[in-house]
């Protein structure tokens, strides 16, 4: 569902941010991309939405080339950024309504928006409140509500839990697990080793644009991910 083939990105300033990345995430899988700041996680996700163009290689969503047919490919994936930003003067529901319509879904009623907002754990009183009053956690939740409403088979999340309080983080994980249950392919970047271990089906560790390790849950059963991570971070 989410596939990268020799995906490479060299920025204009010459920095090689991503070096021949190969990954393939299947429906019902959560793939956690681990890496320090500047490892190339955001770059990877940006390539899938055609926010930037790859230097070489291919990013595919449901088999569609994200560079050649971005409009088509984007339909298969929803995006949640590290810091979801919305239109402050619009209410939560208005924001939801706008982005959902942009994703091509029409004729959704108020109730359906409320349902999803409940599902992601937004407090009822916030539904018709202007988003500029929201905390970061509330915005992240609304961001994932937008992603859910897109009803796409793939989900790409860029450090979605960074900066969330533990409770909100735990709720977030719950939600992701439920979405996996619905058969979605999920790519989540993070530098939170514990959370990755908790939910990932596959974990990839990235360093300076190179995927230096990729292990499944089974592989990791008898290993200490944290030690592994630190070990990989050290050697170069």
């Amino acid at each position, binding site marked *: 569902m989410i596939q990268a083939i020799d995906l490479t990105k060299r920025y204009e300033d010459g920095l090689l941010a991503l070096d021949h990345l190969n990954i393939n995430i299947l429906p019902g899988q959560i793939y956690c991309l681990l890496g320090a700041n500047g490892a190339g996680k955001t770059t990877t996700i940006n390539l899938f939405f055609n926010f930037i163009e790859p230097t070489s290689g291919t990013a595919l969503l449901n088999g569609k080339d994200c560079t050649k047919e971005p409009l088509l490919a984007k339909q298969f994936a929803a995006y949640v950024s590290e810091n*979801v930003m919305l239109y402050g003067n619009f209410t939560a529901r208005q924001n939801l309504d706008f982005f959902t319509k*942009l994703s091509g879904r029409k004729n959704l009623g108020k109730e359906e928006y409320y349902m999803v907002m409940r599902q992601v754990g937004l407090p009822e009183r916030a539904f018709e409140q202007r988003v500029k009053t929201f905390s970061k956690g509330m915005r992240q939740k609304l961001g994932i509500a937008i992603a859910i409403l897109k009803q796409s088979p793939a989900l790409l999340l860029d450090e979605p839990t960074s900066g969330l309080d533990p409770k909100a983080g735990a709720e977030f994980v719950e939600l992701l697990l439920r979405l996996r249950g619905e058969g979605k392919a999920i790519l989540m970047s993070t530098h939170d080793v514990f959370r990755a271990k908790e939910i990932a089906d596959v974990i990839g560790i990235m360093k300076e644009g190179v995927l230096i390790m990729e292990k499944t849950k089974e592989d990791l059963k008898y290993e200490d991910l944290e030690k592994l991570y630190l070990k990989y971070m050290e050697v170069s």
Partner: protein
Amino acid sequence: MIWHITRKELLVNLQSLRFLIGLVVSALMMGIVGYVLVEDYAARVQKYIADVQEHREALAQTKVYSTIAVVVDIPPSPLSVFSRGSQDLPTAVQVSPYHVPSLIDEAGGSASIGLSGTSSQPSNPLLRMFTSIDLGFVISTILSLFAVLLVFDSFSGEREQGTLKLLLSSSAGRSHLLAGKYLGALLTLAIPLTVGFLEVMILWALHPALSFDASVWAGVGLVYLASLLFLSGFLALAMFLSLYAKESSSCLMYLLLAWVTVAVVIPAGGGFVAEYLRPLGLRENMLSESERASTEFMKALGRIDYRQIGPWNNVSTNPFEGESFLGITQEEAYNRLAYNQKVVPMKFQFAEDRFRVVESYARALRSWGRTRDNLIRPSLCVAYDNIVKAVAGTDVDSFDDVVRKARLYRDMMMAYLRPRSGTPAWFTRVFDYPDVQPTESNQKYWQSLIEKQGEQAVEKILSWDRVSPLDLSAMPSPAVGMRGAAERVEGALPDALFLFALCLLFLVLSILRVRHYPLN
């Protein structure tokens, strides 16, 4: 898809402070300018009605054919509220046997009848280049500035605010986003525009002295459409430029610079540049040529033998104008008639010749004016101003059209007058009033009257006031009105197409550019 973005843009704009401020400022400006110009128009209508009346009465008082002068008054255009057009365009054109009207009323030695509404200086609309403050000006400056403030951050703002990636992660493409934002801004701008037009219409409707027919409303509709087209073009330009800067603040700088260039520098600077390109010595040439023609004409006249018979009382002659003789003998009248039969055709010819000299000067200036217009046309504001002027009928072309029609009318008038130029009534009425003839018996009688009652008694007898006016009911009267709607639209079309093409160009460039707009 695009519509959802448009709707969102509209909502965001309507909730913004800058929209509120812009709306208030533009509504105030358009209200004030609209009010002043509606009043001004009403005053000019009153003046026009009075002028027409005055000129008709003056014509009805004509005593001899050679002094006929028809003043064609030009009705003020109700749409002049939107465009005053070239300043100091004459409000009337004079037509007479000895004067062929031209676009430029210069070197018209015979045009001694002061035209109402014109200054004492010779009128030359071709040399004016700065137009006055009118609604078109407000729209092309204030609303274009509004457009700048509306779109300078349409992409950079979303980027800085962090919503751009989320927007583009949906099924919307970059060009959809561009189109949606563009339409949203256009709809937003249409609000102050519409408010301004409504203000003007209300002012019109409330004005007791003004009433309008359907063609005027159609004209208002056209000006409205032209304004939308202008704002579309300006928005497209602003949108395009805004895609070249990452930060909103530098976007705003670029756009303000572009605004000053388009709204101020090009229109004014182009005029200054054109001033250097103005063909030198044209006017001097024209004047000297006109002078030479006059001298030659006078020489030719001198070669025609004429010996005056008897005294002249209450006579006015001028080789360049019509003439009137009252106190002459029948003998002298016949003598003069014989002379006139040779001289009047020469005078007619001279009028034509002088017209040709002035006209060729006018054409030369006109073509220089076209160069100047083309020089500054790349500014959207100028193209827009041209459109509104053409629709309102306040441009030089419309005036040119009036003058041309006046010339055509003169041909008809001459067809009526030519046969009469060989009759005594061309210059005298002595045959109708034998008591004004300075015959010996009359002169003796006058002498005795002067002794008894003083000079005034004789003056009374010899006065043109006694003479009944000519019956001119068979003379064609001028039907010189404003250009028809179709013609005016046709006049506006080139600039409208140009504006449309510019708008498309900027949109296409924007679409090409937005593909590479950096999201980070």
